[in-house]
């Protein structure tokens, strides 16, 4: 078998790249050491967000993805639930409103609403909130189902890739010749030459309480935590339900390599922040906690393009915690660049030869 393209990594980004290339008529083979969505993609909440992104190239990529997702995610619990960002202190009001105004100027549906209206949207919200912004475009899906939907009809092989030279990949079992290779290995992308680091995150899952929490609701300080590059533990309150009625509680960010132990101080901080937003959660049992590794690029921008050092090797990684939200446009852009089509969005900010990214 000599596919046109081998995609390394069967997470949401690898699946989106494979799907976009397959649609252009290329033959594609996806390889992954485990299986579809077995790493980062299954460790998140499946968010498709515009609300947490400041105007700039990442927001443009997010908006392009948001337009593409509904047609791709119909079998993946797609839900246009909307996001609600709340300030919990007086000091947080002005920065939240300024951020929302900036986003509105860039064309995002960011409606400032009163605390009363916020309580109307989310009856169990802490009435002490000081400000709220409603984002109509925020959505959610089931990331494992979405990955499998994207991979439909595309050959998959379970194998671990040891090396690639851009024209072939060598796995533990064989060498596969091909026309090009896509590195979509997420937080493990550093093995193939780009500076991507794992940034740990932990999610708590409660027993089902269907219908009690309707939107993705998060504390306004979340945006600051996402943008930070600090290695130390950072937590922010992020609360939402799944279609099964369970509530997912995040978020934490920590850089400590691939250490996957779960720390009680992280659980404590997440619980405190969730209860601060929804006091009724205090009596709701947590059934599970799980962690994952976000693929973190030091300059907080995805890496999408051909590696100038290794012709034929393309990268699609570094999406940190936004991979689900950015996946379809990433795949589209990669396929545009690889086939010489007009790019869906400006590729320049995502190029591989950024000083922070080349290693």
């Amino acid at each position, binding site marked *: 078998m000599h596919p046109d393209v081998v995609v390394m990594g069967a997470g949401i980004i690898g699946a989106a790249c494979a799907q976009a290339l397959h649609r252009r008529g290329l033959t594609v083979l996806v390889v992954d050491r485990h299986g579809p969505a077995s790493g980062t993609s299954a460790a998140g909440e499946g968010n498709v967000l515009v609300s947490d992104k400041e105007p700039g190239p990442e927001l443009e990529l997010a908006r392009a993805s948001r337009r593409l997702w509904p047609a791709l995610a119909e079998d993946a619990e797609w839900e246009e639930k909307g996001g609600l960002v709340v300030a919990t202190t007086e000091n947080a009001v002005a920065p939240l409103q300024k951020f929302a105004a900036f986003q509105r100027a860039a064309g995002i549906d960011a409606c400032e609403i009163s605390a009363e209206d916020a309580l109307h949207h989310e009856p169990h919200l802490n009435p002490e909130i000081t400000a709220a912004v409603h984002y109509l475009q925020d959505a959610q899906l089931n990331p494992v189902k979405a990955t*499998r939907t994207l991979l439909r009809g595309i050959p998959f092989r*379970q194998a671990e890739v040891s090396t690639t030279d851009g024209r072939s990949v060598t796995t533990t079992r064989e060498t596969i010749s091909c026309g090009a290779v896509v590195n979509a290995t997420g937080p493990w992308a550093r093995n193939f030459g780009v500076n991507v680091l794992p940034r740990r995150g932990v999610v708590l899952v409660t027993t089902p309480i269907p219908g009690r929490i309707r939107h993705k609701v998060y504390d306004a300080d979340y945006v600051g935590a996402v943008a930070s590059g600090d290695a130390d533990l950072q937590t922010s309150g992020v609360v939402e339900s799944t279609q099964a009625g369970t509530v997912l509680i995040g978020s934490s960010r920590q850089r400590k390599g691939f250490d996957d132990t779960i720390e009680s101080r992280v659980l*404590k901080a997440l*619980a405190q922040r969730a*209860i601060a937003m929804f006091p009724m959660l205090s009596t709701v049992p947590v059934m599970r906690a799980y962690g994952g590794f976000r693929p973190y690029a030091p300059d907080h921008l995805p890496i999408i393009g051909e590696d100038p050092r290794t012709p034929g090797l393309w990268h699609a990684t570094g999406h940190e915690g936004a991979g689900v939200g950015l996946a379809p446009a990433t795949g589209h852009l990669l396929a545009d660049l690889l086939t010489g089509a007009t790019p869906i969005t400006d590729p320049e900010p995502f190029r591989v030869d950024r000083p922070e990214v080349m290693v």
Partner: protein
Amino acid sequence: MRVVVVGAGPAGMAAARTAADAGADVTLVDSEPEAGGQYLRGRARFSHDGVTHLKNTEAWMVENQTLHLRGHPPLTFDSLVIATGAYDRPLPFPGWDGPGVITAGAAQALAKQGVTLAERVIVSGSGPFLLPVATALQDLGATIVGVYEASSPTKWLREARAIAANRHKIAELASYRRVLPHLETRTAVIAKHGSRVTVAKLDGQWRPTSHRTEHADLVCVGYGFLPRTDLVPEAARTNDFLDVDERQRTSVPNVYAAGEVTGIGGADLSEAEGVVAGAAAAGRQPPPRALKAIRNGRLFAAALDRAHAVQPGWQTWLNDDTTVCRCEEVRRKDLGRATTMRELKLTSRVAMGRCQGRICARNAADLTGVPFDGQRRVIAIPIPLGELAELPEEQQ
């Protein structure tokens, strides 16, 4: 030397006593109001110098040298002994999720509390545990319709060495003589609708070869056991039971394991393992007698495992609409294809419910061919968010 023992069954009590006798400062943590575990449920009358017994206390996470507890400040330890035992594995069949079907372990636990369950009772499963369950139910006045053992007794003929080293185990059979006449081998309950119970004769692979109808109010099922290993999710294991060395050390530093978390072999093996783990946890040489009892006991445990291993033919008892996961109401046909447990769970929601996959995860893995990943629960039991929020600040 601070030694913490989790679980007050035969293994945990032995570990606590041995460690205390060796001079360690011992805390025995157990979720029940009285010591004894599943085996001696509340009848152990445990009390020992040097052992603090924390009753009604659930442990939910081990973090470095600290054990987190519900409703009690965390305990720090130099050595930890995991003696949390095992729970029984039901196999699904049409109707198992309806009324009148419980696990054999649940039946025995209720029987030990003196609760009468029903009039006509069937016990169906595999392994010697079925006999004491049936005996306990009969003692409470239940009519035993049948005790159905899915495996073939001839398998034990190949285990002469294990039997010779454990003659006392065979003697135990005598105490179950009143239910032995009801024992039918190569037989299982494969469906229940109301009080109509379909009982099948099985081939060596547990595929039905013929069936008949019996009437029973209650069916108790138990096809072996799964270990309660949640406190050490990262510990090395084989077929989900914790791996231990000759001193009962797990792969996690300073953590020992004893009893049925390491394999199923009965209370005497558990107790011997507890003695060795308790001695080693307190920094002493384990007594040779206990080491010898473990060697013999493990011969028996391995034989038991071979003779009563679950055979794949049980999968033919289900139809497409049979429930596999009761919490999330996942039917067999909902399972679909997957390559990992996580993928299977997130696409079908099997094992994602309140029981944290204890009842169904192993069965779902077998039904789909997905490798069973040995349920790595970071939070061992459901715990209210408010309790997590009020965890004490870290000790420095």
